[in-house]
């Protein structure tokens, strides 16, 4: 319940924060929302010597469409994304995902950047961003660089971020016509991590065939996963029952869940199958202008 002692820094700018990472390296942890880090510290499963609080840096919290992208500042709270009219209207996949992260109080503090950088395979943003085909913008001592989200998750709690880099922005292509998305999560109760969750982003062309499909899977592997085969099976096809069923089966085969208190692996696999089918149908319905 009581964390170990640490030294605390509260930089005012990103370069200041980066310099602290350069100086203290692996002994420093970044504090954004803190609702992954602080619980670990309270159980003394994490005991960093230095904590760098990012919350006093202005200009890292925003939701805006600009230059053909939807841009989300890393310190944007889950609750802000959940309640954003822009998100609900134009990015239903992200609005759905924001809504089911933990509980309303945690969502007031947790940030999208912190969540992605933490890279818990049970984190909902990982699967959602994989489905959305996002890019991660990282800022380090040498400046910024862009990492496609497909290359971002390297292992459980391990990302492509270098120890002296801070995730500062997430961006994805601005929503266009005929696009839809959905994020469905099965959890044991509200506030829990997913038994399994599936995010789907797709666009339908004039004939009703899927133009661009992204499917992300949550908590069914050692990292957030993309169901690439499933997405390919849908691309160019109309999402009729048979096609959707094939894609859903493919998604189930592409994941690698562990048996744990949330259920045996074969259960989670089948939940992926069921949720993928439901999410694809819902995304398609939204792409057509319904739901």
């Amino acid at each position, binding site marked *: 319940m009581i964390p170990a*002692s640490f030294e605390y820094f*509260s930089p005012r700018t990103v370069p200041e924060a980066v310099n602290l990472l350069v100086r203290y390296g692996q002994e420093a942890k970044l504090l954004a929302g803190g609702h992954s880090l602080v619980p670990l510290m309270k159980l003394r499963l994490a005991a960093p010597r230095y904590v760098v609080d990012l919350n006093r840096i202005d200009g890292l919290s925003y939701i805006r469409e600009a230059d053909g992208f939807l841009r989300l500042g890393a310190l944007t709270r889950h609750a802000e994304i959940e309640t954003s009219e822009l998100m609900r209207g134009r990015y239903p996949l992200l609005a759905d995902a924001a809504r089911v992260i933990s509980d309303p*109080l945690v969502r007031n503090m947790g940030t999208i950047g912190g969540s992605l950088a933490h890279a818990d395979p049970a984190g909902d943003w990982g699967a959602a961003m994989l489905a959305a085909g996002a890019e991660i913008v990282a800022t380090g001592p040498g400046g910024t660089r862009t990492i496609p989200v497909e290359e971002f998750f390297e292992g459980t709690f391990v990302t492509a971020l270098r120890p002296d880099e801070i995730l500062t922005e997430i961006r994805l292509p601005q929503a266009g016509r005929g696009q839809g998305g959905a994020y469905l999560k099965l959890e044991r109760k509200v506030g829990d991590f997913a038994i399994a969750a599936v995010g789907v982003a797709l666009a339908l062309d004039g004939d009703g065939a899927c133009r661009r499909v992204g499917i992300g899977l949550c908590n069914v592997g050692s990292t957030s996963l993309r169901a690439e085969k499933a997405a390919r099976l849908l691309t160019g096809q109309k999402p009729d029952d048979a096609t959707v069923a094939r894609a859903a089966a493919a998604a189930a085969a592409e994941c690698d869940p562990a048996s744990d208190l949330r259920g045996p692996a074969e259960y989670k696999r089948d939940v992926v199958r069921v949720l993928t089918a439901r999410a694809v149908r819902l995304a398609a319905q939204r792409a057509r202008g319904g739901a």
Partner: protein
Amino acid sequence: MGTRISVTVNGTVREADVEPRLLLVHFIREILGMTGTHIGCDTTNCGACTVLLDGRAVKSCTIFAVQADGRAVMTVEGLARDGQLHPLQEAFHQQHGLQCGFCTPGMMMAAYAFLQRTPNPTEEQIRWGISGNLCRCTGYVNIVAAIKDAAEKLRASPARAGGRG
């Protein structure tokens, strides 16, 4: 090894030297002696520690006091104004929305923030709004009734809305 912090709590500036690792809930309870905010778990699940931080309902057991430096905190002690109970407090009493009272401060603070965003909620929305707060005694039915009742009272008399936060 103290860090000087200055936190506006229920409208009053409070200053203290604290360790960085001091949890906000302990700052409130132990340093400020305001024991209305409670601790019910150690894994950020139960919400008994809910306070408002710059107007947002948060779990004060998962925030360091140093993070609140220069910010405003509102606790259950800040709900009543000049001795007059806030409509939420009245409603919890009238609707029997509490039994042992331990989850109640956190529940009311979560409800306070929720009603500011959603002043005319359905029952479904209320249940969603308090889904981060556990209660073992009431089965939530009367808590939901209390929040609905408070929402009506607040819509009827908006002047009673603000506590000190």
